[in-house]
């Protein structure tokens, strides 16, 4: 019997049967509904919300909306989508859009969302390329999560942030505070432009330009704070682990980012061409050279110091996909979907434990179904609890439910306050 544990059916995430079993037995509909609706009775946040389904064979159906969580579940089981996305609450029910007068369907409220994808790190990561991701390059994402999470909470005052692994090589963030839901596109744009530091395409060496038109201002206090958070990450991830400046292409990029007032670059290049120094050693060498300027030439020192700060930002600051966050009507893949390529579940990620997170250990739909197969068919336990409780999805659903409970607590509190106020009259 001992062998049987390893012997499991091979569940293929692209098979309709597998997805159907997942939606029937594992998807956490209840907390999912409460998370979007922020109340127990269906409100506009749910009934006027757009859901977009991607069916097997890449058929894409937009503008679905549902009166209740049950109706949603029934439709998911019927369509059996390979994944689905969430849009905004509209001014009317999206499903009625054909009978509405032109322009009557306007996006109104929507969680503020962020999307970070490993593709944007391809030019600086050295361990993987393309669609791959490993525990090592996850370090970039982890650094990004820490900085963004801190900024969104401390600077912008948001409380209800849900970080969700995107199933392959990225992470999403959903902010459910009422103040976030209410943001207009202009306001979202303002926030994102503030947060966006890395800009420019392949052809542009220097991608951090946050010091005004002459590039000689001080960092905005909030960016300065981010920089301090990032310094240890830069050392650990970029210098030690990724060894970003080891290869010639790597150190040439570094040299290109240094000012050219003094001939610092020339000797460094000569030295590095004929040696195989680690990134750490190279960085220390640069730091030492810049340190020597402090006494001799102060403005020049400041200039190099600024350049070093910008380099740290360029290598470790979150690379966010700004367009996703700017518009309320942008659709984003829902948490707890299955990534069609990897079969991994888009599970919530605890930002304070983001360093420990390993994408390779995220349960796949196949593993979960195998775990379900292993429940003894007539055990009393299985009757009482939801199916997911017997699988490794449990801790993630628990985390999600805790998050949802906090949102509900606040929204109930706000409602009570509003009621009391109206009783005063």
């Amino acid at each position, binding site marked *: 019997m001992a062998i049987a544990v390893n012997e499991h059916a091979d569940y293929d995430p692209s098979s309709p049967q597998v997805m159907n079993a997942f939606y029937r037995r594992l998807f956490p509909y209840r907390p999912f509904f409460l998370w979007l609706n922020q109340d127990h009775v269906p409100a506009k946040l749910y009934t006027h919300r757009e859901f977009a389904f991607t069916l097997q064979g890449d058929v894409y159906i937009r503008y679905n909306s549902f009166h209740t969580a049950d109706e949603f579940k029934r439709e998911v089981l019927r369509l059996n989508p390979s994944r689905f996305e969430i849009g905004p609450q509209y001014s009317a029910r999206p499903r009625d859009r054909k009978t509405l007068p032109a322009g009557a369907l*306007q996006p109104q409220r929507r969680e503020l969302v962020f999307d970070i994808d490993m593709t944007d790190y391809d030019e600086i990561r050295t361990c993987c390329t393309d669609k791959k991701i490993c525990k090592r390059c996850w370090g970039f994402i982890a650094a990004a999560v820490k900085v963004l999470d801190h900024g969104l909470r401390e600077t912008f005052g948001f409380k209800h942030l849900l970080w969700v692994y995107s199933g392959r090589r990225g992470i999403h963030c959903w902010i459910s505070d009422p103040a976030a839901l209410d943001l207009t596109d202009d306001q979202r744009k303002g926030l994102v432009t503030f947060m966006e530091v890395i800009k420019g395409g392949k052809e542009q060496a220097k991608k951090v330009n946050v010091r005004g038109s002459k590039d000689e201002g001080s960092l905005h*206090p*909030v960016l300065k704070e981010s920089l301090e958070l990032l310094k240890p990450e830069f050392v650990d991830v970029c210098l030690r682990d990724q060894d970003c400046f080891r290869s010639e292409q790597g150190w040439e990029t570094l040299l290109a980012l240094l000012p050219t007032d003094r001939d610092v670059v020339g000797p460094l290049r000569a030295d590095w061409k004929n040696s195989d120094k680690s990134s750490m050693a190279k960085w220390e060498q640069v730091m030492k050279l810049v340190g020597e300027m402090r006494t001799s030439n102060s403005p020049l020192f400041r200039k190099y110091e600024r350049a070093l700060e910008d380099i740290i930002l360029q290598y470790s600051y979150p690379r966010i996909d700004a367009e996703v966050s700017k518009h309320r009507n942008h659709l984003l893949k829902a948490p707890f979907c299955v990534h069609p390529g990897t079969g991994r579940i888009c599970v919530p990620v605890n930002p304070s434990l983001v360093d420990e997170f390993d994408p390779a250990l995220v349960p796949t739909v196949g593993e979960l179904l195998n775990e379900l197969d292993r429940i003894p068919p007539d055990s009393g336990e299985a009757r009482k609890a939801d199916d997911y409780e017997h699988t490794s999805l449990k801790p993630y659903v628990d985390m999600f439910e805790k998050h949802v409970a906090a949102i509900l607590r606040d929204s109930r509190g706000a409602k009570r306050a509003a009621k009391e106020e109206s009783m005063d009259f």
Partner: protein
Amino acid sequence: MFKPSTRHNLPALTADVKINKRQSTSASSSSSSSSSRWPYRLNFYDQPPVLDITLEEFEVFAIARLRVLTHIEALSHRSLPFPQFSSAVGTYLKQHLPLSSNTARNVNVLEERRKDEIGHWVLRLAFCRSPDLRARFLRSELALFRQRFETDDAAERAAFLKSLQFDWQLVDAGEKARLETELKTCLWTSGTSKDEAFRAESWFKVPWHTVPDLVGQRRVYINGGMAYVPQSLQISLVLQAFGSRLERALELTAKNLPRLDEDERLGPVLDHLATSFLSGLGAAEYQSESDGNGTTVTADMVDDVARKHFPPCMRNLYDRLKRDHHLKHFARLQLGLFLKGIGLPLDEAVVFWRRMYGATMSDDKFNKEYKYNIRHGYGQEGKRMNYAPKSCQAILTINQPGTQDSHGCPFRHFSPDNLVIFLLSTYPQLDRSSPEMRDILDSVKTSHYHVACTRVFEVTHGLKKGQGLGPDGETVTHPNKFVDRSREMERDRMEAIKAKEGGGDEDVKMD
């Protein structure tokens, strides 16, 4: 809600302000004298006017403001640097919707303010109807308010701001001292030292989302959801307040609008205003200049005028006519009326069309079918209407061309690829990869066809971006204006040359 009561049968002279008795509730007691209704030049338009107005005023005031807003919108799509934009708006305002400060002399300040206010409220009614219209109205009104705010007399502006009683939270001395480093870093000073500027400055604390533009530019310190706005950037706060109040008010008006349709006299006026704005052109009607200065064009001259002065839509039709010796009905109509507008008399028109059709058509057929249409266009047949040449608005929106048609506006009705081919083959000044071409295609992409056309005018007349057709950067609103302006510029150039030759100026060598 603002509900105008119009007395259309009163003589237009009745321009004196009367408080409408029926609605004079709380407002009337405080505004017994009209001066207290408009104590300041600036206006947040928070109080609906309760004035009796004539239907004529209703329309005239609205059109005046519509012109201004349209002009502002067109200017703003040309991405001029702000000072240039602001001064262009200023010049235009002085002419079309002046609004003077309290200290102004020899001006009927109250009449100006009344006109300004009524125009605003009428346009609210016209523009609240769709989210798109609301957004565009809001943007233009904001730009208008901003221009006025920034040019206002400092003392009057301060008094006005005080009257609005904003509840901005002032950062107290303790907090200011505690946040010294952060606040100082966010000060963008020029010249004076940061320490000095810091000491002199005071800050308001507001929820960050009320100043998204300042946040986007990282011009304010933010902590715990609050943005610290220095007094010197107050304009952002004011604009935000103006914009959000107007936005809310427009949505409210939109909900209540159906009640207004009862007055069938206002309905069409409002409709007309809204459609004019939608096509980006402020009720621009063309008055032919040809009878004014007597420049008659003969059939022989058309070809020369076409090559030098025609706007793209007409150039396209003319080139096709020359090539195919044929045009379909709407295309003929569009070109025919246009030619009438540039001063081609009826008899010359007959000659012109006969020649263009050439051997492809028998005299008999021409006389029977085509001559009638030509004469009709000149008001010599049928209803004897003297049809006006079509404005861009009409060309853009009425009788959309089918796949076989060649009429319409190239910017709007050509596919992007065909538009590029057409522009390149017609205007040697344009280059496929030039920034001008990019400007043009960008404007087309955002549906600002007349802006694209204006850019073509600028490029083909050696003008700088933003100079447009006229002294205050006018945009193309009518094909005939395009031609008139182009010919006028040529005349000016010729006269300048003549003057120089006549004066025997030896320094200038002509070749």
